[in-house]
Protein backbone atom coordinates (compact mmCIF):
# COMPACT_ATOMS: atom_id res chain seq x y z
CA UNK A 1 0.00 0.00 0.00
CA UNK A 2 2.68 2.44 1.11
CA UNK A 3 4.79 1.43 -1.84
CA UNK A 4 1.86 2.16 -4.16
CA UNK A 5 1.35 5.60 -2.72
CA UNK A 6 5.05 6.29 -2.99
CA UNK A 7 5.09 5.23 -6.63
CA UNK A 8 2.11 7.36 -7.57
CA UNK A 9 3.69 10.32 -5.83
CA UNK A 10 6.92 9.80 -7.69
CA UNK A 11 5.02 9.87 -10.96
CA UNK A 12 4.14 13.50 -10.38
CA UNK A 13 6.66 15.28 -12.48
CA UNK A 14 7.22 18.28 -10.26
CA UNK A 15 7.67 16.16 -7.16
CA UNK A 16 10.11 13.95 -8.97
CA UNK A 17 12.12 16.97 -9.98
CA UNK A 18 12.28 18.20 -6.42
CA UNK A 19 13.44 14.78 -5.26
CA UNK A 20 16.14 14.65 -7.91
CA UNK A 21 17.29 18.13 -7.07
CA UNK A 22 17.64 17.17 -3.44
CA UNK A 23 19.55 14.02 -4.24
CA UNK A 24 21.90 15.67 -6.69
CA UNK A 25 23.02 18.35 -4.26
CA UNK A 26 23.67 16.22 -1.24
CA UNK A 27 25.93 13.45 -2.48
CA UNK A 28 27.86 12.48 0.61
CA UNK A 29 30.81 10.30 -0.22
CA UNK A 30 31.96 7.35 1.82
CA UNK A 31 35.60 7.16 2.87
CA UNK A 32 37.09 4.08 1.31
CA UNK A 33 40.45 4.56 -0.35
CA UNK A 34 41.31 1.71 -2.65
CA UNK A 35 44.28 2.96 -4.63
CA UNK A 36 46.90 5.65 -4.97
CA UNK A 37 44.53 8.36 -6.27
CA UNK A 38 43.92 8.95 -2.56
CA UNK A 39 45.87 12.19 -2.00
CA UNK A 40 43.75 13.95 -4.58
CA UNK A 41 40.67 12.82 -2.69
CA UNK A 42 41.94 14.86 0.24
CA UNK A 43 42.83 17.78 -2.00
CA UNK A 44 39.43 17.96 -3.66
CA UNK A 45 37.61 17.82 -0.33
CA UNK A 46 39.68 20.49 1.42
CA UNK A 47 40.24 24.19 1.23
CA UNK A 48 41.22 25.02 -2.33
CA UNK A 49 38.92 22.85 -4.42
CA UNK A 50 36.25 22.29 -1.81
CA UNK A 51 33.67 19.97 -3.33
CA UNK A 52 31.36 20.75 -0.45
CA UNK A 53 30.26 23.64 -2.66
CA UNK A 54 28.61 20.98 -4.80
CA UNK A 55 27.23 19.10 -1.85
CA UNK A 56 29.84 16.35 -1.80
CA UNK A 57 31.04 15.95 1.74
CA UNK A 58 33.32 13.09 2.75
CA UNK A 59 31.65 11.26 5.57
CA UNK A 60 32.83 8.39 7.73
CA UNK A 61 29.56 6.53 8.28
CA UNK A 62 28.52 4.63 5.20
CA UNK A 63 24.88 4.36 6.30
CA UNK A 64 24.41 8.04 5.56
CA UNK A 65 26.32 8.15 2.30
CA UNK A 66 25.06 7.87 -1.25
CA UNK A 67 28.21 8.18 -3.29
CA UNK A 68 31.31 6.04 -3.46
CA UNK A 69 34.51 7.18 -5.14
CA UNK A 70 36.58 4.23 -6.27
CA UNK A 71 39.98 5.88 -5.96
CA UNK A 72 42.21 3.95 -8.31
CA UNK A 73 43.07 0.30 -8.57
CA UNK A 74 41.09 -2.33 -6.69
CA UNK A 75 42.98 -5.41 -5.59
CA UNK A 76 41.24 -8.74 -5.27
CA UNK A 77 41.41 -8.54 -1.50
CA UNK A 78 39.94 -5.06 -1.50
CA UNK A 79 37.23 -5.97 -4.03
CA UNK A 80 35.31 -7.99 -1.43
CA UNK A 81 35.38 -5.08 1.03
CA UNK A 82 34.36 -2.65 -1.68
CA UNK A 83 31.37 -4.77 -2.57
CA UNK A 84 30.45 -5.14 1.09
CA UNK A 85 30.64 -1.39 1.57
CA UNK A 86 28.51 -0.80 -1.49
CA UNK A 87 25.87 -3.28 -0.39
CA UNK A 88 25.58 -1.68 3.02
CA UNK A 89 24.87 1.77 1.63
CA UNK A 90 21.19 2.79 1.44
CA UNK A 91 19.48 3.35 -1.91
CA UNK A 92 19.87 5.43 -4.05
CA UNK A 93 23.63 5.03 -4.41
CA UNK A 94 26.06 6.08 -7.09
CA UNK A 95 29.59 5.12 -8.06
CA UNK A 96 32.29 7.28 -9.62
CA UNK A 97 35.36 5.45 -10.93
CA UNK A 98 38.47 7.58 -10.55
CA UNK A 99 41.66 7.03 -12.50
CA UNK A 100 42.79 4.74 -15.29
CA UNK A 101 43.13 1.84 -12.91
CA UNK A 102 39.51 1.93 -11.84
CA UNK A 103 38.43 2.18 -15.46
CA UNK A 104 40.46 -0.58 -17.06
CA UNK A 105 43.33 -1.70 -14.89
CA UNK A 106 45.60 1.05 -16.17
CA UNK A 107 49.22 0.67 -15.24
CA UNK A 108 48.55 -2.70 -13.60
CA UNK A 109 47.03 -4.33 -16.67
CA UNK A 110 49.22 -7.42 -16.25
CA UNK A 111 49.16 -7.66 -12.48
CA UNK A 112 47.96 -10.88 -10.88
CA UNK A 113 46.21 -9.22 -7.98
CA UNK A 114 44.43 -6.21 -9.48
CA UNK A 115 40.82 -6.26 -10.73
CA UNK A 116 40.82 -5.10 -14.35
CA UNK A 117 38.28 -2.33 -14.12
CA UNK A 118 35.93 -1.77 -11.23
CA UNK A 119 32.85 -2.24 -13.43
CA UNK A 120 33.44 -5.96 -13.06
CA UNK A 121 32.11 -5.71 -9.52
CA UNK A 122 30.08 -2.49 -9.21
CA UNK A 123 27.73 -0.59 -11.55
CA UNK A 124 29.63 2.60 -12.40
CA UNK A 125 27.85 5.88 -13.14
CA UNK A 126 30.69 8.19 -14.15
CA UNK A 127 34.26 7.47 -15.23
CA UNK A 128 36.95 10.08 -14.60
CA UNK A 129 40.22 9.38 -16.42
CA UNK A 130 43.65 10.54 -15.26
CA UNK A 131 46.55 9.19 -13.26
CA UNK A 132 45.59 10.63 -10.81
CA UNK A 133 42.87 12.96 -12.18
CA UNK A 134 43.24 16.57 -11.13
CA UNK A 135 40.76 17.83 -8.53
CA UNK A 136 39.09 19.83 -11.30
CA UNK A 137 38.38 16.56 -13.07
CA UNK A 138 36.83 15.16 -9.90
CA UNK A 139 34.57 18.18 -9.77
CA UNK A 140 33.58 17.66 -13.38
CA UNK A 141 32.77 14.05 -12.55
CA UNK A 142 30.52 15.18 -9.72
CA UNK A 143 28.78 17.69 -11.97
CA UNK A 144 28.18 15.03 -14.62
CA UNK A 145 26.66 12.76 -12.02
CA UNK A 146 24.40 15.58 -10.87
CA UNK A 147 23.18 16.09 -14.42
CA UNK A 148 22.49 12.39 -14.66
CA UNK A 149 20.53 12.37 -11.43
CA UNK A 150 18.48 15.37 -12.51
CA UNK A 151 17.13 13.36 -15.44
CA UNK A 152 16.35 10.26 -13.38
CA UNK A 153 12.83 8.87 -13.68
CA UNK A 154 11.62 11.57 -16.07
CA UNK A 155 10.27 10.68 -19.50
CA UNK A 156 12.34 11.89 -22.40
Amino acid at each position, binding site marked *: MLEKIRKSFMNIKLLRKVFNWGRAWSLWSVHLETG*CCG*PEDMARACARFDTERFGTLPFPTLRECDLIFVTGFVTKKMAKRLKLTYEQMPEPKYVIAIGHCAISGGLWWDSYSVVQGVDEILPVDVYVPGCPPRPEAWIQGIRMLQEKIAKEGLKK
Partner: protein
Amino acid sequence: MSVMKLSMGPQHPITGHFRFILDVDGDLVLKLEPDIGYTHRGIEKLAEKRTYLQNLPVIERVNSYCDSAGTMLGYLEAIEELMGLEVPERAKYLRVIAAELNRIASHLYAACLFSVATGLETMLMWPINDRELVLDLLEKLTGQRITYTYQTIGGVRFDMPEGFKEEALKRLDYLEKRTEDYYKMLLWNHTFHMRTKKVGILKPSDAIKLGVVGPNLRASGVKVDVRKDEPYEVYDKFDFSIPTGKNGDSYDRLEVRFKEVEQSINILRQALKDIPKGPIKKWAPPIVPKGEAYTRVEAARGEFGYYIVADGTMKPYRLKMSPPSFRNLIALPHLCKNVPLGDIPVIYISLDLIPMDVDR
Protein backbone atom coordinates in the same frame (compact mmCIF):
# COMPACT_ATOMS: atom_id res chain seq x y z
CA MET B 1 36.07 -9.31 31.87
CA SER B 2 36.26 -11.19 28.65
CA VAL B 3 38.55 -10.40 25.77
CA MET B 4 36.83 -9.50 22.52
CA LYS B 5 38.08 -9.40 18.95
CA LEU B 6 37.46 -6.15 17.09
CA SER B 7 38.03 -5.49 13.43
CA MET B 8 38.92 -1.92 12.43
CA GLY B 9 39.03 -0.86 8.79
CA PRO B 10 39.54 -0.78 5.86
CA GLN B 11 36.42 1.38 5.60
CA HIS B 12 37.39 3.65 8.45
CA PRO B 13 38.29 7.35 8.39
CA ILE B 14 41.68 6.75 9.96
CA THR B 15 43.05 3.40 8.87
CA GLY B 16 43.11 4.04 5.12
CA HIS B 17 43.82 0.75 3.40
CA PHE B 18 44.66 -1.19 6.53
CA ARG B 19 42.65 -3.48 8.73
CA PHE B 20 43.56 -3.90 12.35
CA ILE B 21 42.50 -6.90 14.35
CA LEU B 22 42.34 -5.79 17.95
CA ASP B 23 42.02 -7.78 21.15
CA VAL B 24 40.05 -5.50 23.43
CA ASP B 25 39.14 -5.81 27.07
CA GLY B 26 36.59 -3.09 27.66
CA ASP B 27 38.32 0.03 26.41
CA LEU B 28 41.80 -1.39 26.67
CA VAL B 29 43.58 -2.74 23.61
CA LEU B 30 45.68 -5.72 24.58
CA LYS B 31 47.05 -6.62 21.18
CA LEU B 32 47.00 -5.18 17.70
CA GLU B 33 47.53 -7.20 14.60
CA PRO B 34 47.76 -5.34 11.29
CA ASP B 35 46.14 -7.05 8.33
CA ILE B 36 48.04 -5.86 5.27
CA GLY B 37 47.75 -6.66 1.58
CA TYR B 38 44.79 -4.51 0.55
CA THR B 39 46.91 -2.64 -1.97
CA HIS B 40 49.25 -5.39 -3.08
CA ARG B 41 49.94 -5.06 -6.78
CA GLY B 42 53.04 -7.21 -7.03
CA ILE B 43 55.29 -4.38 -8.16
CA GLU B 44 58.47 -6.37 -7.65
CA LYS B 45 57.21 -9.06 -9.98
CA LEU B 46 55.84 -6.61 -12.52
CA ALA B 47 59.20 -4.84 -12.62
CA GLU B 48 60.78 -7.99 -14.00
CA LYS B 49 58.47 -7.88 -17.00
CA ARG B 50 59.16 -4.27 -17.93
CA THR B 51 62.29 -2.57 -19.19
CA TYR B 52 64.28 -0.27 -16.95
CA LEU B 53 62.73 2.80 -18.50
CA GLN B 54 59.19 1.43 -18.44
CA ASN B 55 59.66 0.73 -14.77
CA LEU B 56 59.90 4.39 -13.83
CA PRO B 57 56.16 5.11 -13.49
CA VAL B 58 55.63 1.76 -11.80
CA ILE B 59 58.30 2.34 -9.15
CA GLU B 60 57.02 5.81 -8.51
CA ARG B 61 53.62 4.53 -7.51
CA VAL B 62 55.06 2.54 -4.66
CA ASN B 63 54.58 5.70 -2.73
CA SER B 64 52.55 8.15 -4.72
CA TYR B 65 51.25 9.68 -1.51
CA CYS B 66 53.16 12.90 -2.21
CA ASP B 67 56.57 11.34 -2.28
CA SER B 68 57.12 10.09 -5.82
CA ALA B 69 60.34 12.00 -6.46
CA GLY B 70 62.05 10.87 -3.28
CA THR B 71 61.06 7.27 -3.87
CA MET B 72 62.39 7.09 -7.37
CA LEU B 73 65.84 8.50 -6.62
CA GLY B 74 67.07 5.23 -5.13
CA TYR B 75 66.11 3.21 -8.17
CA LEU B 76 67.90 5.60 -10.49
CA GLU B 77 70.95 5.67 -8.24
CA ALA B 78 71.17 1.88 -8.41
CA ILE B 79 70.92 1.79 -12.20
CA GLU B 80 73.43 4.57 -12.63
CA GLU B 81 75.80 2.78 -10.31
CA LEU B 82 75.57 -0.35 -12.46
CA MET B 83 76.08 1.63 -15.65
CA GLY B 84 78.83 3.77 -14.21
CA LEU B 85 76.97 6.81 -15.44
CA GLU B 86 77.88 10.25 -14.19
CA VAL B 87 74.82 12.50 -14.13
CA PRO B 88 75.27 16.20 -15.09
CA GLU B 89 75.57 18.54 -12.14
CA ARG B 90 72.49 20.58 -12.99
CA ALA B 91 70.35 17.44 -13.22
CA LYS B 92 71.50 16.41 -9.75
CA TYR B 93 70.41 19.74 -8.36
CA LEU B 94 67.04 19.52 -10.08
CA ARG B 95 66.52 16.04 -8.68
CA VAL B 96 67.23 17.28 -5.20
CA ILE B 97 64.87 20.22 -5.66
CA ALA B 98 62.04 17.90 -6.70
CA ALA B 99 62.76 15.49 -3.85
CA GLU B 100 62.86 18.19 -1.20
CA LEU B 101 59.67 19.84 -2.44
CA ASN B 102 58.11 16.42 -2.21
CA ARG B 103 59.33 16.00 1.32
CA ILE B 104 57.63 19.25 2.34
CA ALA B 105 54.38 18.18 0.66
CA SER B 106 54.53 14.79 2.31
CA HIS B 107 55.14 16.15 5.82
CA LEU B 108 52.34 18.67 5.44
CA TYR B 109 50.08 15.83 4.41
CA ALA B 110 51.12 13.95 7.54
CA ALA B 111 50.18 17.00 9.61
CA CYS B 112 46.72 17.00 8.01
CA LEU B 113 46.14 13.38 8.88
CA PHE B 114 47.38 14.01 12.39
CA SER B 115 44.86 16.74 12.92
CA VAL B 116 42.08 14.45 11.68
CA ALA B 117 43.15 11.86 14.23
CA THR B 118 43.10 14.35 17.07
CA GLY B 119 39.95 16.13 15.92
CA LEU B 120 41.42 19.57 15.21
CA GLU B 121 39.87 20.26 11.85
CA THR B 122 41.38 23.71 11.32
CA MET B 123 44.78 22.14 10.98
CA LEU B 124 43.35 19.90 8.29
CA MET B 125 42.56 22.88 6.09
CA TRP B 126 45.67 24.99 6.67
CA PRO B 127 48.46 22.58 5.74
CA ILE B 128 46.53 21.12 2.84
CA ASN B 129 46.07 24.58 1.43
CA ASP B 130 49.78 25.29 1.82
CA ARG B 131 50.59 21.94 0.31
CA GLU B 132 48.82 23.14 -2.81
CA LEU B 133 51.42 25.90 -3.09
CA VAL B 134 54.18 23.30 -3.11
CA LEU B 135 52.28 21.14 -5.58
CA ASP B 136 51.91 24.18 -7.84
CA LEU B 137 55.67 24.56 -7.84
CA LEU B 138 56.12 20.90 -8.65
CA GLU B 139 53.58 21.19 -11.40
CA LYS B 140 55.52 24.05 -12.91
CA LEU B 141 58.70 22.03 -12.75
CA THR B 142 57.40 18.63 -13.81
CA GLY B 143 53.96 19.02 -15.33
CA GLN B 144 52.06 16.90 -12.83
CA ARG B 145 50.74 17.33 -9.32
CA ILE B 146 51.32 13.96 -7.70
CA THR B 147 53.06 11.52 -10.00
CA TYR B 148 55.86 13.11 -11.98
CA THR B 149 58.17 10.61 -13.66
CA TYR B 150 60.42 13.66 -13.72
CA GLN B 151 63.74 12.08 -12.92
CA THR B 152 64.88 9.63 -15.53
CA ILE B 153 67.94 7.49 -16.16
CA GLY B 154 70.81 9.88 -16.78
CA GLY B 155 69.20 13.09 -15.57
CA VAL B 156 65.84 14.80 -15.55
CA ARG B 157 63.33 15.28 -18.32
CA PHE B 158 62.68 19.02 -18.22
CA ASP B 159 64.72 22.04 -17.30
CA MET B 160 63.59 24.61 -14.77
CA PRO B 161 61.00 26.91 -16.38
CA GLU B 162 61.49 30.65 -16.52
CA GLY B 163 60.58 32.50 -13.36
CA PHE B 164 60.56 29.31 -11.30
CA LYS B 165 63.35 30.42 -9.02
CA GLU B 166 61.75 33.70 -7.96
CA GLU B 167 58.37 32.05 -7.52
CA ALA B 168 59.86 29.25 -5.45
CA LEU B 169 61.80 31.61 -3.17
CA LYS B 170 58.68 33.67 -2.59
CA ARG B 171 56.64 30.63 -1.67
CA LEU B 172 59.35 29.23 0.58
CA ASP B 173 59.42 32.52 2.50
CA TYR B 174 55.67 32.26 2.92
CA LEU B 175 55.88 28.65 4.06
CA GLU B 176 58.53 29.49 6.63
CA LYS B 177 56.34 32.21 8.06
CA ARG B 178 53.44 29.82 8.01
CA THR B 179 55.16 27.15 10.11
CA GLU B 180 55.01 29.57 13.04
CA ASP B 181 51.24 29.53 12.73
CA TYR B 182 51.30 25.76 12.79
CA TYR B 183 53.21 25.80 16.04
CA LYS B 184 50.64 28.12 17.56
CA MET B 185 47.70 26.19 16.21
CA LEU B 186 48.79 22.63 16.78
CA LEU B 187 52.05 22.06 18.59
CA TRP B 188 51.51 24.53 21.42
CA ASN B 189 47.86 23.64 21.73
CA HIS B 190 46.91 22.27 25.11
CA THR B 191 44.34 19.82 23.75
CA PHE B 192 46.89 18.48 21.35
CA HIS B 193 49.39 18.00 24.17
CA MET B 194 46.88 15.97 26.11
CA ARG B 195 46.17 13.73 23.15
CA THR B 196 49.75 13.11 22.04
CA LYS B 197 52.27 13.64 24.84
CA LYS B 198 53.39 10.39 26.48
CA VAL B 199 51.30 8.43 23.98
CA GLY B 200 53.06 5.67 22.10
CA ILE B 201 56.53 6.11 23.52
CA LEU B 202 59.21 4.38 21.45
CA LYS B 203 62.48 4.05 23.32
CA PRO B 204 65.69 4.50 21.29
CA SER B 205 66.90 0.99 22.09
CA ASP B 206 63.58 -0.50 21.00
CA ALA B 207 63.54 1.61 17.86
CA ILE B 208 66.97 0.38 16.82
CA LYS B 209 66.10 -3.20 17.68
CA LEU B 210 62.89 -3.11 15.66
CA GLY B 211 64.60 -1.46 12.70
CA VAL B 212 62.48 1.66 12.59
CA VAL B 213 63.70 4.26 10.08
CA GLY B 214 63.29 7.89 9.14
CA PRO B 215 61.63 10.62 11.19
CA ASN B 216 60.22 8.02 13.59
CA LEU B 217 63.70 6.89 14.51
CA ARG B 218 64.95 10.43 14.79
CA ALA B 219 62.02 11.32 17.05
CA SER B 220 63.34 8.70 19.48
CA GLY B 221 66.61 10.60 19.64
CA VAL B 222 68.75 8.56 17.26
CA LYS B 223 70.59 10.80 14.84
CA VAL B 224 70.49 8.87 11.58
CA ASP B 225 69.91 10.38 8.16
CA VAL B 226 71.15 8.90 4.91
CA ARG B 227 71.48 12.36 3.46
CA LYS B 228 74.20 13.10 6.00
CA ASP B 229 75.67 9.66 6.68
CA GLU B 230 76.06 8.51 3.10
CA PRO B 231 75.43 11.57 0.92
CA TYR B 232 73.99 10.86 -2.51
CA GLU B 233 73.34 13.28 -5.38
CA VAL B 234 74.57 16.65 -4.10
CA TYR B 235 73.50 16.50 -0.47
CA ASP B 236 77.10 16.81 0.71
CA LYS B 237 77.19 20.38 -0.59
CA PHE B 238 74.38 21.66 1.57
CA ASP B 239 74.52 22.88 5.08
CA PHE B 240 71.63 21.50 7.12
CA SER B 241 71.01 19.85 10.45
CA ILE B 242 69.18 16.71 11.47
CA PRO B 243 66.39 17.44 13.94
CA THR B 244 65.85 14.86 16.66
CA GLY B 245 63.26 14.40 19.38
CA LYS B 246 63.69 13.71 23.07
CA ASN B 247 60.97 11.42 24.31
CA GLY B 248 59.99 9.46 21.23
CA ASP B 249 56.26 9.93 21.76
CA SER B 250 53.64 10.83 19.17
CA TYR B 251 54.15 14.52 19.80
CA ASP B 252 57.86 14.29 19.03
CA ARG B 253 57.20 12.42 15.84
CA LEU B 254 55.14 15.29 14.50
CA GLU B 255 57.50 17.96 15.82
CA VAL B 256 60.44 16.33 14.05
CA ARG B 257 58.48 16.44 10.81
CA PHE B 258 57.80 20.14 11.18
CA LYS B 259 61.45 20.79 11.90
CA GLU B 260 62.36 18.77 8.83
CA VAL B 261 60.16 21.00 6.74
CA GLU B 262 62.23 23.94 7.96
CA GLN B 263 65.42 22.11 7.04
CA SER B 264 64.04 21.27 3.60
CA ILE B 265 63.28 24.93 3.03
CA ASN B 266 66.86 25.64 4.02
CA ILE B 267 68.20 23.06 1.55
CA LEU B 268 65.95 24.34 -1.23
CA ARG B 269 67.16 27.90 -0.77
CA GLN B 270 70.77 26.77 -1.09
CA ALA B 271 69.99 24.56 -4.06
CA LEU B 272 68.16 27.33 -5.90
CA LYS B 273 71.05 29.69 -5.24
CA ASP B 274 73.93 27.44 -6.29
CA ILE B 275 72.36 25.58 -9.20
CA PRO B 276 74.92 25.57 -12.02
CA LYS B 277 74.25 25.96 -15.73
CA GLY B 278 74.70 23.09 -18.14
CA PRO B 279 73.01 20.06 -19.67
CA ILE B 280 70.22 18.32 -17.79
CA LYS B 281 70.42 14.85 -19.28
CA LYS B 282 73.01 12.42 -20.46
CA TRP B 283 72.19 9.73 -22.95
CA ALA B 284 71.94 6.33 -21.32
CA PRO B 285 71.94 2.98 -23.14
CA PRO B 286 68.81 0.85 -22.66
CA ILE B 287 70.85 -2.18 -21.62
CA VAL B 288 72.25 -2.34 -18.11
CA PRO B 289 75.44 -4.41 -17.70
CA LYS B 290 75.50 -7.53 -15.55
CA GLY B 291 75.88 -6.99 -11.84
CA GLU B 292 74.25 -6.22 -8.54
CA ALA B 293 73.72 -2.95 -6.76
CA TYR B 294 72.22 -1.83 -3.49
CA THR B 295 71.47 1.80 -2.80
CA ARG B 296 69.59 3.63 -0.13
CA VAL B 297 68.10 7.07 -0.07
CA GLU B 298 66.23 9.12 2.47
CA ALA B 299 62.64 9.37 1.26
CA ALA B 300 60.17 11.50 3.19
CA ARG B 301 59.09 8.62 5.39
CA GLY B 302 62.54 7.19 5.94
CA GLU B 303 65.27 5.15 4.43
CA PHE B 304 64.36 3.50 1.12
CA GLY B 305 66.58 0.65 -0.06
CA TYR B 306 66.76 -0.83 -3.56
CA TYR B 307 68.52 -4.00 -4.57
CA ILE B 308 68.82 -4.69 -8.29
CA VAL B 309 70.20 -7.78 -9.96
CA ALA B 310 70.88 -7.13 -13.63
CA ASP B 311 71.59 -9.93 -16.09
CA GLY B 312 72.78 -7.84 -19.01
CA THR B 313 69.42 -7.43 -20.73
CA MET B 314 66.92 -4.58 -20.94
CA LYS B 315 64.91 -5.88 -18.00
CA PRO B 316 65.94 -6.32 -14.39
CA TYR B 317 66.39 -9.92 -13.25
CA ARG B 318 65.26 -9.05 -9.74
CA LEU B 319 64.25 -5.84 -8.05
CA LYS B 320 63.87 -5.86 -4.30
CA MET B 321 62.66 -2.87 -2.37
CA SER B 322 62.77 -2.17 1.29
CA PRO B 323 60.32 0.68 1.77
CA PRO B 324 60.22 2.80 4.94
CA SER B 325 56.59 2.22 5.89
CA PHE B 326 57.09 -1.53 5.92
CA ARG B 327 59.89 -1.16 8.39
CA ASN B 328 57.96 1.31 10.53
CA LEU B 329 54.89 -0.91 10.60
CA ILE B 330 56.74 -3.31 12.88
CA ALA B 331 56.66 -0.68 15.60
CA LEU B 332 52.87 -0.47 15.56
CA PRO B 333 51.99 -3.75 17.33
CA HIS B 334 54.82 -3.00 19.74
CA LEU B 335 53.38 0.41 20.64
CA CYS B 336 49.76 -0.68 20.81
CA LYS B 337 49.96 -2.92 23.84
CA ASN B 338 47.73 -1.98 26.75
CA VAL B 339 46.65 1.39 25.40
CA PRO B 340 43.12 2.83 25.35
CA LEU B 341 41.21 2.34 22.11
CA GLY B 342 41.07 6.11 21.56
CA ASP B 343 44.85 6.30 21.28
CA ILE B 344 45.10 3.84 18.41
CA PRO B 345 44.43 6.47 15.66
CA VAL B 346 46.99 8.85 17.16
CA ILE B 347 49.71 6.23 17.39
CA TYR B 348 48.97 4.90 13.93
CA ILE B 349 48.98 8.32 12.27
CA SER B 350 52.05 9.44 14.16
CA LEU B 351 54.07 6.70 12.47
CA ASP B 352 52.97 8.12 9.10
CA LEU B 353 52.51 4.72 7.45
CA ILE B 354 51.41 4.44 3.87
CA PRO B 355 49.77 1.07 3.13
CA MET B 356 50.75 1.35 -0.52
CA ASP B 357 54.42 1.06 0.21
CA VAL B 358 53.92 -1.60 2.87
CA ASP B 359 52.24 -3.88 0.34
CA ARG B 360 53.94 -2.81 -2.89
